[in-house]
């Protein structure tokens, strides 16, 4: 096992290199660059522009800039954002907790509801409840998230005034005022969880149904145990293990997948950092976040593969 892990990590290094190279080339070949909005006629003269280009290092060929970035990276320096002139490392560190708060909460919510719905559908399979709960689970995923978000803001914030319209906490309140944090978190986290509830519940239902057919379950039933107990103790435990693999694959999403929700709810997270960076062509930010995301994917895949192997002995870790 250790051999496997080490080998995979070593194999990841060229992949990481490839990722950063690909991203760099993508950024540089796209039309538009950071300077453009500043060149807007009347705003900047030729002299200032050239100086700015030079300060940002943009007047060098792309491979030189790439080399420079890699050199800084080896010294654990991700450079400074073009727009904010702050170290990219600090910017990511500042926004990461916010995103995690949102995505982890929504993941937990999705797990809870997903498992609940999945189990209930499996038990009552074929009945109306099964049908309705499946529809319900999918419905949340079928709705464009920003549409639902704004409608809920309209209902719960503007009309009912129960919840705030956005942000991570109210200005003037302390960060540990949990009730305030909860009020801000509940709406975006719930909406975000819908997308995953569908997948989780279907997955759990499918796995449960499969496990039900197995002989040892039949044996347990033959012994006269109640179906519910049978399910809970034997089936559920087995069926849930593969869920770990699903979590592994979701790792990347945890850190940057909530862009639309973050925009609607003014949530100061990573997703918005990436979007704004992309629109403004803020290369250091984009490279920093891409690298971060890449590391997460690699770790996530590793976790997922290990979990697969642990669960299914047929698949040998080569």
């Amino acid at each position, binding site marked *: 096992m250790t051999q496997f892990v080490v080998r995979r990590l070593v194999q990841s290094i060229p992949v990481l290199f490839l990722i950063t190279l690909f991203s760099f080339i993508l950024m540089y070949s*796209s*039309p*538009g*660059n*950071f300077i*453009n*909005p*500043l*060149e*807007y*006629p*009347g*705003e*900047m*003269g030729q*002299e*200032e*522009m050239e*100086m*700015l280009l030079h*300060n940002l290092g943009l007047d060098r060929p792309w491979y030189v800039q790439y080399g420079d970035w890699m050199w800084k990276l080896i010294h654990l320096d991700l450079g*400074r954002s073009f*727009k*904010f*002139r*702050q170290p990219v490392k600090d*910017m990511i560190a*500042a*926004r990461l907790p*916010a995103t995690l708060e949102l995505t982890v909460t929504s993941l937990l919510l999705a797990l809870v509801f997903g498992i609940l719905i999945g189990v209930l559908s499996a038990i009552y399979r074929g009945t109306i409840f099964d049908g309705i709960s499946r529809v319900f689970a999918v419905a949340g995923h079928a709705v464009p998230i920003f549409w639902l978000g*704004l409608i809920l*803001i*309209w209902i719960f*914030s*503007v009309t009912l*005034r129960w919840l*705030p*319209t*956005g*942000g*991570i906490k*109210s*200005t*003037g309140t302390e960060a540990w005022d949990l009730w305030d944090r909860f009020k801000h978190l509940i709406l975006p986290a719930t909406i975000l969880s819908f997308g995953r509830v569908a997948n989780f519940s279907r997955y759990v239902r499918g796995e449960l149904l499969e496990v039900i057919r197995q002989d040892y379950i039949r044996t347990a039933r033959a012994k006269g145990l109640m179906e519910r107990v049978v399910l809970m103790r034997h089936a559920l435990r087995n069926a849930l293990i593969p869920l770990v693999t699903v979590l592994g694959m979701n790792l990347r999403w945890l850190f940057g997948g909530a862009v639309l929700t973050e*925009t*609607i*709810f*003014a949530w*100061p*997270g990573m997703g*918005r*950092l990436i979007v*704004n960076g992309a*629109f*403004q*062509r803020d290369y250091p930010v984009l490279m920093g976040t891409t690298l971060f995301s890449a590391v997460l994917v690699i770790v996530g895949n590793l976790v997922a593969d290990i979990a697969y192997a642990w669960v299914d002995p047929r698949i040998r870790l080569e």
Partner: protein
Amino acid sequence: MKRLGLLISLITIVSLLAACATPTPEIVEKVVTQVVKETVVQKEVVKETVIIEGTPQVVEKEVTKVVEVEKVVTPTPSAAGGEIIFGVTSDFATTIPTLSRDSTSASAQYLMYDGLFRIDPVELVPIPWLVTDWEVSDDQLTYTFNLRDDVRFHDGEPLTAEDAKFSIEALIDPYNSSVLLGRLNVITGVEVLDTYTFQVVLEQPYAPLITFLANTGAQILPKHLLEGEDLLATDFLNNPVGTGPFKFKEWAGGDHMTLVANEDYFLGRPRLDSVVFRIVPDSASLVAALKTGEVDISGIGARDIPQVQGDPHLQVIEMPSDCFYTIGANLSQERFQDKRVRQAIMYSLPREQMVAELLEGHGYVTDSYILRHSWAYNPDTQPVYRQNLEKAKELLAEAGWVDTDGDGVVEKDGEPFKFSLLSYTSITPGYNETIQQSLKDIGIQMDIQLLDWPTFLNKAFVEKEYDSFTVNMCVPLDPHNPTVWGCGTNAFFFCSEEFDEMGMKAVATTDREERKKYYFEMQNFLAEEQVRFLLYSGTTIRVVNTRVVVGQGSPRNYTLASFTLWPHEWYLVQR
């Protein structure tokens, strides 16, 4: 509009009286009134001629109208204290004025720093602020400034001429690529004469010097904290120190920035305790936040006005905008080189209707390239282009464009008139489509290409690869604008020596009346030539919660904090 004008006059008179008393600003208890809009239901009996079964008859109808009435109210001030929350849609780029390029950053800096001069929000002229008085040498090349001696930075250090010298030098240092570099590089040197006196030396006479020193980007930095630092990579960014009415407290990246009152502000402690800027990226969410009171002040677009109008807690403040909605045609293309074609395009556009509908009436149609609230504006710019489809078609035909094959598109020499319009994603919805429809009505086929902002700018202004583009063009108050119109520097291949000459003559003299003559001519020239289609100008709109008193809007509205009351005078109302 009239009542607003009266209001402004009232405030002007009072502040002029106060200003005449002393050359430096003091805490002036301005008579501040607020204009509150109320909706009132009016019932009217109206006589209408209706055709019933072929015969016209006069019929009385009762019509119910919901009308908005402006009431002038003097709110009662509360005890000092409280907090105002601004809503902005993007994060702050920088807290250092020298480096500032966007209005969000400038808004926060306006509260944290002071400048040598400041633009008076009502009179729109620079008034001395940190400077008490100054002298200009006979050759107009040397300015000697005297500073106030009672100003301190937020860390207690006094403001001296050294700081002024440091700040000005930072502005003209090409390394910092300040926005003001091109406008202030006539400065050859700054000399400190004594603690509170310094001299600025120019290489040629320069009328707009003081105006640019009043820009928010020229506000004074603390030399003792920034000397020797690389402004582009300093920690000062996260802990800015200025002399302004509000001190920096914290900045949670992407979320909010908090400023607290500066107890030792040279004009007196601000009435408010703190000011917060909250970042709300989505415009619909921002409107929601305004409605719930989570945000007190924000800028919105014209189309959002109906969404906040009915709300009794929100007040809509409108100010003349510095921007025009324009279309630039690629004049290197032959078909656009014929003046008649360009005029035809202008005649096809329903500009009044666009202002009435797309801007909800908040704007004005103009044929002049100079802002209406500028002293150089020519109200009789000729020719005037009212929508006239017939005339437009006539002009096209004269230029040789006729629909020979009946497909709805005019042709010339076998070439149909088709071109593409480059635009960007955040433009007013409906703007491009309306233009497209209008051109279709005169036989020109235009298709729309939307790009995101950097790509758009790249294509339009750098690569200059386009048939036409639309852009919201914002201009500085001073009518001298060679980058936009000058030969070789503008983006749409316009070159007229005549025009450039007039421009040079206009700026060589400081006599305003003479300059006006030139600018009037230039406006008529461009209106006739239509090298860039100026459609209309909108207004800048702010929404202010009625619990907050900041005065009225100012045409100098570059920052969100630009109101007729200075920031240290803002207060909350007790209701």
